[in-house]
């Protein structure tokens, strides 16, 4: 297969020719839509008056909940998200009214004239408060093996603590956007920047009270998504569809950046508690985790996310007696949602903190503790939820990376540096990632495709996955071309469209290429078998004594060939019209479902994952302890993608994921005020990494010679796992802070490690040292 090809849209990206929803040319009937949202975190809507707003010239429509023709709902799993508020608002940013006008300015003028009378209620704005009041969004769950409490009692050493990990804003460059164009009758065409076109279609149909067959959702590409458009693109799409339905005109809503940040959910913040038992060597014997997440005002995907956090609280480590409890709490903030990693990062941050603490407690290098606790190859290889880890790559990666990164030498030079510098400290950390691939809601692991060969021999591939920059369409194009033995330029991957491939799952869980690649292959296998059958006939017409059998037909070099008689061959371009004359159907649908997985949510036991992706990173930082500013001096990554479908794209996913994770771990801080308003609602105050924040020396490699059994072309999913490699950056910063007190004290630490967290942690350490000195002095006397 042609491997190292650029993204199929690269030339369009660099020339500005790639069309995103906001770029689609529409006639001058287009109206601008706007959503008017709650300014209170929790309040009763006592009354409102839209009459003045409706009078603004150019305004075509001002709508409220009463104007919804169908079901006032846009909850993806649990139906607890009202599309337009009725009499109560539960977070700042909740939609109440919609406006459509000829210009944005008219919309804004109309919005200013809307009068709403609220009666504020108490708002729950912190996780602590929600925990205190036990405001659960649903029942808690536990995954458990062994008897943790007695194991803790027996353990030679125990540690306990608490870890806070922060929310994260997706900050896709293209904010939420949707364009709806009315068709005839009740038809509506929806161009949405959504990761889940089928769900967008379903919610619009229910909202408008029409059949799904009246709604077509199309996605050419998204300008980034990262999970933020898995369920929450639906909102903008629903609002746009309502306005389109009501005005019978094309309508577009593109959320202004600040509105997008205020309205949409984020990565869940977690408050986690842990207790661990370990032996003198640092081998973990038992652990008891309690994970608490802030779900926000509605369920969204919170329980699936909590589940994945619980399933990744072990990360790469075998813990004999282990229990993880997870609870999702309700607050008066926008409902939190999917974000690359989907709970995995929050779960892993806890166990990585534990390992780091154990190492400091035992005065050992954390790397040593990590490798000691890795899941074994033959034994100690069953997770706390009962899945056996096959094809464990942890040791292979560890050994290669420890050597290639010169970890041990650098540990020594870091120590030397720290011994001779007071105001600058260096830190070094290696962290592993083991990430389970599959939707944990097992039935979602299915995909469809429709492959069409036109009479000119050109091929159009439709599949259920969406392109958000991850290179899915490129990989699909490669797979299709390789399977049909044709050149890449013959294959085009179509915009994702619900009328071509129906009832799809979201493009999520990193499984886009795994699932859709297989579905496309399945469709192509069907086509190939039909073609082979007829071609065998055609070839045999001239050779009755030595006929061609269908099994010997191969597809190579843009030709169809009898492999037993290589002179019997016909070019693909010539073959297709011939096959058409022979009445061979030249399009086929394909389907795939992941085999051999099954997971009992209630028992917390089973095989939720088809396989695991592995990776590791070593990060070294330099910390200015007077300003709290850090520089990533060097990062080495070794990541496992099986047999890569496209190395350029996979490395891009690894590096991009790492940097996005670095953002979550360092500068990206979400803050709300005491009224529930998002304070960090624009890039002015919300800081994702810039070009100057990347490692000064950045070395990424893919693990070689490790084909993955039973997946498309022996590849592995990539998208999510590399994000968690950034925990090495976070812990390297902690290592540098810890050096301030010569690793004698456990530093106070949370995530993100902003310069504020860093400076205050250092202050605390200095106090600890002063107290210890005074104490020693007193004792001596």
């Amino acid at each position, binding site marked *: 297969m042609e491997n190292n090809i*650029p*993204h199929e849209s*690269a*030339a*369009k*990206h*660099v*020339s*500005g020719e790639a*069309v*995103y929803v*906001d770029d689609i040319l529409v006639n001058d009937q287009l109206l601008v839509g706007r959503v008017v949202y709650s300014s209170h975190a929790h309040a009763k809507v006592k009354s409102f008056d839209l009459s003045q707003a409706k009078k603004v010239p150019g305004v075509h429509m001002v709508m409220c909940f009463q104007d919804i023709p169908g079901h006032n709902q846009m909850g993806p799993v649990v139906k607890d998200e009202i599309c337009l508020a009725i009499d109560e608002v539960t977070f700042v940013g909740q939609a109440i009214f919609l406006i459509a006008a000829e210009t944005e*300015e008219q919309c*804004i003028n109309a919005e200013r004239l809307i009068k709403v009378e609220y009666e504020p209620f108490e708002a729950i704005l912190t996780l602590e408060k929600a925990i205190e009041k036990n405001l659960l969004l649903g029942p808690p769950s536990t995954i458990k093996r062994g008897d943790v409490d007695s194991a803790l009692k027996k353990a030679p050493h125990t540690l306990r603590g608490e870890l806070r990990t922060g929310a994260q804003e997706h*900050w*896709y*460059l*293209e*904010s939420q956007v949707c364009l709806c164009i009315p068709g005839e009758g009740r038809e509506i065409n929806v161009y949405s920047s959504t990761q889940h076109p089928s769900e967008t279609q379903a919610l619009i149909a229910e909202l408008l009270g029409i059949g799904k067959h009246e709604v077509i959702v199309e996605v050419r*590409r*998204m*300008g*980034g998504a990262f999970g933020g458009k898995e369920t929450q693109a639906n909102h903008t799409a629903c609002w746009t569809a309502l306005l389109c339905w009501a005005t019978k005109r094309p309508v577009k809503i593109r959320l*202004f*950046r*600040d509105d997008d940040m205020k309205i949409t959910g984020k990565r869940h913040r977690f408050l986690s508690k842990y207790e661990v038992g370990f032996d003198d060597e640092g081998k973990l014997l038992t652990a008891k985790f309690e994970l608490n997440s802030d779900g926000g005002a509605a369920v969204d995907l919170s329980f699936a996310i909590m589940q994945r956090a619980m399933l990744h609280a072990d990360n790469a480590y075998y813990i004999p007696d282990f229990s993880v409890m997870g609870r999702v709490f309700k607050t008066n903030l926008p409902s939190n949602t999917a974000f690359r990693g989907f709970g995995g990062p929050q779960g892993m941050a806890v166990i990585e903190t534990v390992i780091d603490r154990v190492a400091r407690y035992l005065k050992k290098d954390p790397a040593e503790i990590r490798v000691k606790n890795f899941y074994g190859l033959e034994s100690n290889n069953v997770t706390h939820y009962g899945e056996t880890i096959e094809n464990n790559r942890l040791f292979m990666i560890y050994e290669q990376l420890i050597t290639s990164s010169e970890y041990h030498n650098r540990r020594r030079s870091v120590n030397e540096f720290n011994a001779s510098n007071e*105001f*600058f400290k260096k830190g070094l950390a290696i962290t592993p990632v083991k990430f389970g691939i599959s939707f944990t809601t097992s039935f979602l692991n299915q995909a469809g495709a429709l492959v069409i060969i036109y009479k000119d021999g050109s091929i159009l591939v439709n599949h259920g996955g969406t392109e958000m*920059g*991850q290179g899915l369409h490129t990989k699909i194009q490669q797979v299709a071309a390789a399977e049909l033995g044709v050149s890449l330029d013959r294959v085009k991957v179509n915009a994702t469209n619900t009328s071509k491939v129906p009832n799809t799952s979201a493009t999520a869980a990193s499984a886009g290429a795994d699932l859709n690649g297989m579905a496309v292959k399945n469709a192509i296998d069907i086509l190939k078998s039909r073609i082979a059958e007829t071609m065998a006939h055609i070839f045999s017409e001239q050779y009755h004594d030595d006929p061609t059998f269908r099994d010997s037909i191969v597809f190579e070099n843009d030709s169809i060939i009898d492999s037993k008689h290589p002179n019997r061959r016909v070019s693909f371009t010539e073959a297709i019209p011939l096959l058409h004359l022979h009445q061979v159907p030249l399009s086929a649908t394909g389907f795939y479902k992941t085999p051999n997985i099954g997971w009992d949510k209630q028992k917390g036991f089973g095989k939720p994952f088809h396989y695991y992706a592995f990776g590791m990173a070593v990060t070294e930082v*330099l910390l200015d302890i*007077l*300003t709290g*500013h850090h*520089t990533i*001096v060097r990062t080495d990554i070794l990541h496992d993608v099986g047999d890569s479908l496209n190395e350029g794209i996979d490395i*891009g996913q690894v*590096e*991009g994921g790492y*940097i*996005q994770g670095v953002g979550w771990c360092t500068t990206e801080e979400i*803050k709300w005020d005491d009224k529930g308003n998002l*304070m960090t609602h*624009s*890039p*002015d105050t919300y*800081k994702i*990494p*810039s*070009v*100057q*924040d*990347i490692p000064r020396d*950045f070395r990424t490699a893919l693990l070689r010679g490790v084909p993955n059994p039973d997946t498309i072309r022996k590849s592995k999913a990539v998208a999510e796992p590399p994000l968690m490699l950034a925990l090495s950056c976070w812990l390297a910063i902690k290592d540098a802070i810890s050096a301030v007190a010569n690793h004698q004290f456990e530093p106070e630490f949370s995530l993100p490690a*902003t*310069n*504020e967290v860093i*400076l*205050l942690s250092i*202050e605390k350490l200095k106090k600890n040292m002063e107290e210890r000195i005074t104490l020693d002095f007193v004792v001596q006397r």
Partner: protein
Amino acid sequence: MQTSITFVLDDKLQTIDCASSGWITPTTTALNYLRGLPTHKGVKEGCAEGDCGACTVVLGELGNDRTIRYKSVDACLVLLPMLHGKQVITVENLRTDRGELHPVQDAMVETNGSQCGYCTPGFIMSMFSLYKNRDHPSRAEIEDALTGNLCRCTGYKPIVEAAAKSCVHRGLDHFSEREPHVVELLESISKESIHLRTSNQLYMKPASVQEAITLKHQHADAIIVCGATDVALRITKKHELLEKIIDVSDLSELKTIAESEAGVSIGAGASLSDIMPVAEKNFPALYSMLTVFGSQQIRNLASLGGNLGTASPIGDMLPVLIAYHARVTLESLDGRREIPINTFITGYRKTLRRSDELITAIVIPNLNGGIVVRSYKISKRKDLDISTVNGSFRLELDGNQEVKAIMLVYGGMAERVKQAETCERFLLGKRWVRKTIENAMPLMEKDFSPISDARAGTEMRTVAAKNLLMKFWGETTGALIDNQLLSM
């Protein structure tokens, strides 16, 4: 006087008359104008506040030598009349007539520099500007050129590689070939003053400083606009209708940088980018502040006059200019006056400037030997971020290593830029040794009680302010390891 504006787009003169154009007003941003055309949708909006660079375009400005200077800017911050007399280049213009990609585009394809592609046109334009201005740029130069562009997908490494790979042809490309033609077009555009009047707005673009102060006299309520990097946000984010504007962005008299033995006089309208060379030479602490000021796109627009004009308590120029004992020149029909910059700011976003006055220059005296000035900025993200706390310090020691004079000027610690007076008094006459600094640090709590906000809390700000004093001491005495380490 003209009542329309003219610029070059797609190699043709474009004339826009706001009074008759329908959807275009004098305060329409270049971004909204370009995206309003069917042919320039490649210019993207990511934030409409200058922080993401998705809207980056390059402006070609006619130099004195009949060549064109290429500058990257954020189109979301540029008001349409600011384009008058300039060439606007967008990502759509980069392919050759034969459809070949520009070297910077080719390199981005090759290095896998785009994933979702939404940031890509902006990066391409920043890279194009770099291509035209630097041959074989260093990594630091590349990063500086790309700091104003955010990418959420790639992790930047392939983008940096693409810049290194492509900016190696001494800036030659099809734009070089067509430059003479564009120069002719630009020269044909009238330099007369402009008045754009619509039913609810008056936008004035005077042709001289004299005209500007006359207009300001007549229209005391008019808002002055220079780089618009502050003013534009009132339009894009607050949706304010700015009724009267006096645009001084094109006044060459306000852009002069005059060096004399006593010091340097910097025109209030000179862009920060244009100031950087003289700052690097004469005022290193000012230069170091400029290197972490916004991004190249911002510095290509923003002016010193505008920075003082905002009177922001977290503005980066004021503390360092105070430490340099700079003076501000104000001009009105009543004449010219020069005031010491430390008295210029009188309160939260309040200054001594009368409503009929224009800031015309900032004069910075050269330092006498023996005096040290240093500046520091602490922000959540090192680059393209607003200061959480900044500090600019001036120190003069006597022969006994005792403090003869000291200024500790802080931003972000109070409702306006403020000196740590208690600390300063304490330090005066003391030996410049670590113990003195350690004793001075707690006094910072007497000088300031900073706020908590989106950027940081009170405690962090206080710790940071103290630490900066220690850092200053360390740097002046060599007790710190070289700061170079940080720019590795």
